[in-house]
């Protein structure tokens, strides 16, 4: 039995929505990051699925790029996070609003 491509896309959409809601409602920076990762990987899933459907390797290629960029982003993001925690003793993003106009 093969799982139809539509199911993968539905799953991808569900994961993306979960991630989006997470970004919007959670205040802990770490969870925010995890939610962003969730969104990225939801997109990856859609890429790979559609690459398979269309028999085009371009989608898989895009997924690899996203993986690499996500890894880099995590490195930078986490170091910023650590720094914020050291200086402000909190990881609540609502309390970090130095750029308020």
């Amino acid at each position, binding site marked *: 039995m093969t799982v139809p491509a539509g199911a993968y896309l539905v799953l991808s959409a569900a994961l993306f929505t979960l991630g*989006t809601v997470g*970004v*919007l409602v959670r205040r802990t920076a770490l969870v*925010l990051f995890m939610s962003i990762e969730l969104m990225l990987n939801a997109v990856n899933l859609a890429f790979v699925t559609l690459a398979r459907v269309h028999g085009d390797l371009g989608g898989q290629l895009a997924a690899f790029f996203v993986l690499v960029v996500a890894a880099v982003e995590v490195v930078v993001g986490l170091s910023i996070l650590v720094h914020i925690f050291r200086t402000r003793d909190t990881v609540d*993003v*609502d309390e*970090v*609003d130095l750029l*308020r*106009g």
Partner: protein
Amino acid sequence: MGAWAVPWVVALPLAGALVNGLWGGRLGRRGVSLVACLSVLGAFLLSVALTRDLVASPGAEDRTVRLFEWIAVGDFRIPAALVWDRLAALLALVVTGVGFLIHVYSVGYMAEDPDYSRYFTYLNLFVASMLVLVLGANLLVLFVGWELVGLCSYLLIGFWFERPAAAAAGRKAFVVNRVGDAAFVLGILSTGSLLGTLDFREMARLLGEGGGGLRGHPALVTSALLLFAGATGKSAQLPLYVWLPDAMEGPTPVSALIHAATMVTAGVFLVGRLWPLFEAAGPVLPWVVAPVGAATALFAATVAVVQYDLKRVLAYSTISQLGYMFLALGVGGGTAAFFHLTTHAFFKALLFLAAGSVMHALHGQIDLRRLGGLWKSMPFTFLGFVVGAASLSGIPPLSGFWSKEEILHAAHGSGALWLVALGTSFVTAYYATRATVLAFLGDPHSPGRPHDPPAAMAWPLAGLVVLSAVGGFLGAKWLGAPFHAFLGPAWGGHEAPAPDLGAVALAVAVATAGVVAGWLAHRGRREPQLGPVRRALEAQWGVEALYEAAVVRPGQALAHLLSEAVDLRGVDRAASALAEVVVRAGSTIRTWQTGNVRQYAAGLLAGAVVLFAYWVLR
């Protein structure tokens, strides 16, 4: 001496100005004086040599030196070219000769001035500019010199710029001259478009022999009128004379050189230079140039009668004598005009330098009411002033007599103009005597202990005394009238007029009457109370009031309107309003930036949704 020397006549004083301007501080006073005087002396000697060649070789009349192609538009070409002909040679000799004497005089006069090298830089620059003016081979080169001498005049009138009066006088001279110069530029343009050339020789060729079909052409008359308007500005004729009396704020040698002997005669030179054009323009010479000259001559002479500032007396006298020259040009006496230009350069420079010696001895005191009895303490200066004043009055055999008599002779056929000239002669003798009496005769009651000037100032004075005394014999018939023999060919061979004994006697009688009247009226240092006449004279016949009402006050009103209504309420408010809009917009938009990451994320999402919806629903 070949034509190669012509550019050097200009280059020497220019080099002097450059050296003194760039390294004047390091040269020391001695070095600065040497550079300044020797460069002008060199230019003078070159001029003498070039002039001797010009006379010796009649074939080589035109020494035109093309320096480079300046403007080339299609077929219309204007080279930067200098010309050495009789007219240019005469003016170059006067400018460099009198200029050299005044440079030497300045060495003594300015000895104490802290801005010594700046002064000589300007003075040398002036000589170079004036030489560009007189040697220019076309109207545009002449115009360059014309503007440069205007600049030097401005710089030197305002030389002591820390004095507000001097700065204002410089500004006034510049502004009034701009009016004349604007007309001059228009004249150049209309002449160029009419004749297709600005070269003097070409113009003479085109307009020669009956005006080349252009005689009395309206465009030609307009050009001549515009060019003459330019001349009235530079030569301080009615109605643009107002800057010259104020120009006396400058150092006295500057007044002598620029505002008496040379620069102010540029207008006379211009008309002489464009003689073919003015002759072909028909009615301009007899109906505009001559009346303006005659009116200015009489007007300025009468105003000079009530001046108390000795230098202002001389300034009005200069205006009056320039009027004489224009009168002579207007009645066709070109040679007479330039003869008077030359003798006037001698005796007016002498008068100014003598006045400068008085100022030098009395620490700037120049008010005739406070001078007096100086003949005893300053006999040499007294001698110089008397020779100058007598020459100015036209007492034979001094130089002014010869040239003035010739102008009267030329104007003889012109009825009213001749009478005006004769009347001016009387008034001239009157105010010259008045100034002499008030300054030098009577009881000495000047403060301090006046003394004759030091050698550097005395020698130029002596030179000018000699020139003023014997310069007139250049026009003496029984000596072959060398002046006329030299300049005559410049406009087709004017002969020295045969002296008419009756007319000469009349001229001398009028001059003598003026002297006697001046002596009788002011002997014992009295000032006759003339009542309303005196007030009218002191008000310059109302010209100053007319300027005040017609130019100064409307100008100030306009400036006020522009500054209050247009600038403050219009431009400034528009700028402030614009700034206000930006500030308000900024303070509104800044509230959108909360610094909250999650709000930004929500914004991003909303944007993405909107874009997505647009694509889908399109």
